[in-house]
Structure formats: C-alpha cells, structure tokens
C-alpha cells in the first residue's frame, strides 16, 4: 500500500514538472516582456515541447507569470489573481521591472517590487529577457513547484485567499 502511494506521489511530481500551465498577468508593463513571453510559444522557441500552455483563466494555471513594475492600480488585481490560482502554484517575475521596478524606481505611481505583495519563486531579469531565458525560468519554476508540493503534500495551502504565506524560493536566474 505504501509502495503504491509512493509510486503515485513520484508520478504526480513528474507530471507537475512536465505540465506547467501559465497565466500571464501584466502589472503595468511596457508590453516588451509580454511580447517576449508570447514569442516563447512561437515556432522558433516552441515551449509546448515542455508541456507549457498559456491558459485563459487563472483557475487553470500552475504558474503565474507577472510582468511590469506593479503600479498602485495593479496591486489589488495581483492579490486577487494570486488567490484565484489553485495550489500548488509558483510565481515567475518576468523582466527587471517586477524584480526591482527598474527605471521607474521611486515613482509615486508604483507600489513595487512584486515580492512586497506575493511570494516570488523565480526572477527572470532582462529588459526585456530573451524567450529562451523565460522558458528556462518557467522550467525552473515547474521543478520548484513539483518539489515543494511533494514535500508538503498533506498541507496544500487553501485557495481563494490573498497571499499570507511568506516562503520565498528566491532562486536567482
């Protein structure tokens, strides 16, 4: 019985790593990183080989990809969408803006960087980052998500609540 459960857990871990579904969210980005994220799905880079799918609804997603320096208007939306993603989940900050607020630092219209509001697992720096870097970041986030979920399988965090946990993976690209 224990053997079967173990096998099932290992299979689940493998499947989580092989099937990252993304939800893309713009928190005031200049559209540069958004274009690069979409470019990673095009024939040249073809992220679908890793099982990546860009989903329309945050409910379907495993990995939340956030671009932009987090404007004041976007904070509420980010918290809501993070709560709507069902666990286990991971967050990828795409571009330099969500990591450091980039050239917009000290702007009074911003409330960044992103990790002030939700835990971020992978940072993909660049202005904008190249599509291959984004794919690597997503693959890393999928591996982190699978490992973390396997470690505390019994305690998947409840969904539809704003971010309260403070565990950050802090994996620098």
């Amino acid at each position, binding site marked *: 019985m224990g053997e079967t459960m173990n096998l099932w857990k290992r*299979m*689940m871990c*493998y*499947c*989580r790593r*092989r*099937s990252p*579904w993304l939800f893309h969210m713009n928190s005031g980005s200049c559209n540069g990183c958004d274009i690069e994220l979409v470019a990673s799905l*095009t*024939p040249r880079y*073809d992220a*679908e*080989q890793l*099982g990546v799918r860009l*989903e*329309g*609804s945050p*409910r*379907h997603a*495993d990995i939340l990809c956030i671009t932009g320096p987090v404007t004041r208007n976007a904070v509420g939306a980010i918290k809501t969408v993070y709560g*709507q993603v*069902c*666990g*286990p989940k991971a967050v990828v900050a795409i571009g330099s803006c969500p990591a450091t607020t980039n050239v917009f630092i000290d702007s009074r219209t911003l409330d960044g960087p992103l990790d002030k509001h939700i835990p971020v697992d992978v940072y993909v720096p660049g202005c904008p980052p190249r599509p291959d870097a984004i794919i690597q970041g997503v693959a890393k986030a999928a591996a982190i998500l699978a490992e973390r*979920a396997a470690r505390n399988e019994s305690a*998947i965090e*409840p*969904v*539809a609540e704003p971010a309260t946990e403070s565990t950050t993976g802090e994996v620098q690209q």
Partner: protein
Amino acid sequence: MNLTTALARFLIFPGLLFAVPAAWFFLWVERKAVALMQGRVGPPFMQPLFDFVKLLGKSTPPRSGLAGLLMRAWPLIAVSAAAGAVGLLPVLPASGGFEGDLILLLALLELPSMCIIAAGFSSRSIFGEIGSAREAVLSVSYNVVFLLAIVSVAASQHTFRLEAMAQLPSTPLLWIGVLAILVCLPAKLHLNPFSLPNAEQEIYSGPMTEYAGPELAMWELSHGLEWVAATGLVATLVAPHITIGWLAACVFVAISFAVVLLLSVIASATARIAIDSTVRFYWQCTLIFAGLVAVVAISTPLLLRFRP
C-alpha cells in the same frame, strides 16, 4: 444484448478501457497536428496523461450550496454520457444492440454539450455565461444538420438500430449524410473555425473559466471521449462490413484516426468566425443538405425504374 455483453462493451471495448487511452491519444494527435502545421515540434506523446494526472493533484476552490454541488456534478455527468456513447458504438460484428439504440447514442452525444451550457451558467462567471450562451446558439444551429443527416440515413433503411446502420450499403445518401456529419463535427468538438464557446483570448476559457483541478481534468477527459465517440460514429457509418473481430476494430481505429487528422488540419488552417456567420453557415448547410436529400430521394426510384 444481455447484461454481460453490455457491461463488457461499456467497460472494455469500445468502452472505458479502450476509450480513455484513445481519448488521450486523440487529444495528443490534435495538438501535435496543429503544432506540425505551424512548423513547431509540439507536445510529447504522453502530454495529455501528464496534464490529467497533474490536474487530479491540484486543489479546487471551496464551493458551497446547491450551485457548488451542481458545479461538481456537471463534469461527471458529461464524462459518463460520453463514455456511454462510446460504449454503444457497434465496432465488433454481431456485438448485439437493441432497437432504438441510435436515438440513445444521439442523446448521449448531445448530453456533454448540455452539461457545458449548464456548467457555464452555474459558475456565475460572466465569461462562463457568455460561453454558455454561445454554446447554446451553436448547438441549435449545427444540430439541425447533424440530426437531419443521421435521421435521413436511418429512415432510408427503416431502422434505428446502430447495427443496421453499420452494415449500410454505400449509397449516395449515405455519403451525403457522412459529409454533413463531418461539417458538423468541428462545431460539436469546439474546433476552429467554430471554436466560439471556448474562444481563447476572447472570453478567457468560456464555460470552463471557473473550473479547476480534478473537475477540469474531468472536462478534459469528457472532451477526449467526445472525440472518440464523434469520430467513431463517422467510422461506423463509413467502415466496410467486416466479420473478423480484430480486423473490424483496426479499421475502426484507423478511420477514426484519419477523421481526427482531417479535423485538426482544418482547425489549424482556419481562424475563428463570428457567431452570426456560424449560424448562417449551418442554416445554409441545412438547406443545401435538405435539397440534396430530396433530389436523391426522388431520383433513386426513377433511375431504378428506367434501368435497362
């Protein structure tokens, strides 16, 4: 058909044991064909299985009350209806069946789309409601051609038995019917150019917007089973009558595969069209099909009478 054969057909072949792997295979073929048409490599072979297992391991948002209960029930009803439809297909020769099983098959094929409509409305999401309304309009327009095609083929043989439908001689009426069914399948399976209910980039995920985790896995499975059932229906009508069991099964799978490939290629080569154009298209198809059937029905006895 006694209970043992019925159970064997539902659980083993062409039922669950065959249909679930076939559903995942067809979902992969669809994604791979679209990827190849776009010049990409596409997902690995086991991708639908990975997605399914992963979705089973995700949590679902807490839902309470009757609406929550209904939201959990719809995907299960859809999966069982689609699996039942696959189980009814007369793949193996002399596999039994009963008078009127064609009507049951049509009802079971229609049930998943009813569940999608209900699911979108019970999720109370605005995108779900738009998607459901589109699905309802689409279903009203394509089902007229679909049912007309099948009923006219069945009526020409004076039977509603699937077994008799599978042994039909190849008449012009049968081929017109198969063509009409093929025209309806993209709408039934929500493929381009008629992917209106789940229109990505337009209304998020349509009726599925609020679904997550195991429930979404059930929707994916029911979509795959719908693929097997719908292409299987075409395969049953088209396949030549073969008395050897395993050969009949192989021919069935081969024809289904060809239909899946055809539909995927059409899906990747076309763009989504607007809802009013879709409705107009299907009603024009209905008129053309009805005209063709009338011509065939009048001309066949005349030709037979004047045959030298």
